[in-house]
């Protein structure tokens, strides 16, 4: 125990003395958190809408005015032929083309039904989907209006299924409070996975590790000595990030904040363990960077931070059993946004704990004092 204390003291002296790393460790993540939460946002505003109104009737004008009134659309310009409209789509002047064919009003009055065409730029499938749902909701509004005003005023009293959606846990669909925990997880993961491992490999590169390896120090003591300082820093950063989230983004903290920190503590053991384990495989900092980066990318993209992990194919969801980010992102969001407690997250707790024990044992086992 005493030996570990000397090692931790040494690491902190070195970290605090490194004038380049210090701001990188403490200031950059804060800047990233603030900037990225604003940037990583799937809300769409000012969708460029081109209108091709071949009917030019009162009904079609009414439909156009519905889009005009929506904050999500900016009606860019009207076009007069389908070719021109398609050109606008191709030249990126429009994201969506609304094509109202001639006879629109006539068909409504005569047949009580009609068709319009919508063309959406779907290079990005996700935004196209979101666009589509915005359009559908505007059209639904228009449909209600038609039912009431034009077709059958009686229907307004008896229009069958009336869908009223309420969004639980995030009633305003505020994207920021959903993204902040995710971005925060990425940032503390970066700190954890890179710092501990890089520090170890750096000692290999400059040769000081030899001086440590000829001492009677135990492998686990050395690994804990490398683990704890960066674990403390990353945990501090997690807490600090939550504070920023509360102050700047007013994220809700419905659950127990101590649970977040407790899960964070175990999670960071796992992450640092992975970094340290990878560092026992690498001979240079460069090699380690590539190794860590490889796993980081997979963990982040599969972990459910940006896209729901439940929508992935089954094999990918199985891979996620090995993805610490998947556990922690789910946990932190559920505790903060939903107020979940320990009993809801018992599986994640057990999984992360087992993971931590395994990966840290693996790291100290694979760290070779003798080669």
């Amino acid at each position, binding site marked *: 125990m*005493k030996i570990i*204390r000397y090692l931790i003291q*040494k690491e902190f002296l070195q970290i605090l003395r490194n004038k380049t790393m210090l701001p990188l460790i403490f200031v950059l993540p804060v800047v990233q958190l603030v900037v990225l939460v604003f940037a990583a946002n799937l809300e769409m505003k000012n969708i460029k809408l081109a209108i091709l109104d071949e009917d030019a009737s009162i009904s079609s004008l009414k439909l156009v005015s519905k889009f005009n009134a929506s904050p999500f659309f900016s009606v860019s310009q009207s076009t007069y032929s389908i070719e021109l409209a398609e050109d606008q789509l191709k030249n990126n002047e429009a994201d969506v083309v609304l094509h109202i064919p001639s006879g629109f009003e006539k068909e409504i009055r005569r047949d009580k039904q009609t068709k319009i065409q919508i063309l959406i730029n779907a290079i990005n499938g996700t935004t196209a989907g979101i666009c589509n749902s915005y359009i559908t909701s505007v059209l639904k509004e228009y449909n209600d209006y038609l039912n009431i005003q034009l077709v059958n005023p009686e229907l307004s009293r008896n229009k069958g299924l009336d869908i009223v959606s309420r969004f639980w846990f995030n009633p305003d669909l505020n994207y920021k409070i959903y993204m902040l925990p995710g971005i925060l997880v990425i940032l503390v993961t970066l700190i954890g996975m890179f710092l501990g491992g890089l520090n170890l490999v750096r000692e290999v590169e400059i040769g000081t590790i030899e001086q440590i390896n*000829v001492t*009677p120090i135990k492998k686990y003591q050395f690994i804990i000595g490398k683990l704890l300082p960066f674990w403390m820093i990353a945990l501090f950063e997690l807490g600090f990030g939550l504070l920023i989230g509360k102050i700047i983004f007013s994220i809700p903290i419905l659950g127990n904040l101590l649970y977040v920190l407790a899960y964070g503590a175990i999670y960071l053991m796992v992450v640092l363990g992975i970094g340290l384990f990878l560092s026992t495989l690498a001979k240079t900092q460069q090699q380690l960077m590539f190794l860590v980066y490889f796993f980081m990318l997979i963990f982040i993209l599969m972990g459910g931070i940006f896209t729901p992990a439940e929508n992935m194919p089954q094999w990918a969801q199985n891979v996620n059993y090995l993805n610490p980010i998947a556990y922690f992102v789910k946990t932190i969001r559920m505790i903060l946004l939903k107020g979940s407690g320990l009993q809801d997250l018992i599986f994640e707790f057990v999984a992360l704990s087992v993971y931590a024990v395994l990966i840290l044992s693996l790291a100290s086992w694979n760290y070779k004092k003798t080669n």
Partner: protein
Amino acid sequence: MKDAERIIKVRKLYKKFGSFTANKDLNFDVYKGEIFGFLGANGAGKTTAMKILCGLSKPTSGEVKIANYDIYTQTNEIKKNIGYMSQKFSLYEDLTIKENIRLFGGIYGLSKSEIEKRGKELIKHLELEGAKDKLIKDIPLGWKQKLAFSIAVLHEPDIVFLDEPTGGVDPITRRQFWKLIYEAAGKGVTIFVTTHYMDEAEYCNRLSIMVDGEIVALDDPLSLIKQYKSSNMDEVFLKLVRKI
């Protein structure tokens, strides 16, 4: 010397890296309190052999005993009883002199008061009082090496291994360094030193000369000079190396 207590025993030691044999059939003994020199050109296999003796590297085959502990099974016991100073300077550059002393004292399990006491003596002995709070990277190389040696013997080991300890320092500092070595040997510490400075070789009690992974000569400096009909170690060394 033969009556003295044997502290290092090496028999039929081989170390291979793939098809390359770095150490070929090494056999020698080192006795308590002696200064044992390990000579050889660059790449002769000195450092490899020393790393095996320190437990940093596993031999391919052969018997090695350090202070009666077996190199294969009792590495941790061995590590408690040895000190090591490597070719690459191995103190922490971004820690001060005092912090380095405290760290290594702590790792070897010295008590706080002992670290304090021995640290003070060490700093006084090396006349570093004015520099004790300076970072290692800010002090001259000669000081660093004297300091590294003193820290390597801080926990009072039976044997200290020095891997080309005086590379790159001026003759005066080298002399001072050897004074430190003699002081340690006087206290009963066995010194195992590799070097390629021939004048330093003459400071050793006994010498082994390595060529291409093999020990080609082993005796005290004067006998070697006589045996090879030379006037100094330089000539002995050149004769041995050129013959191969």
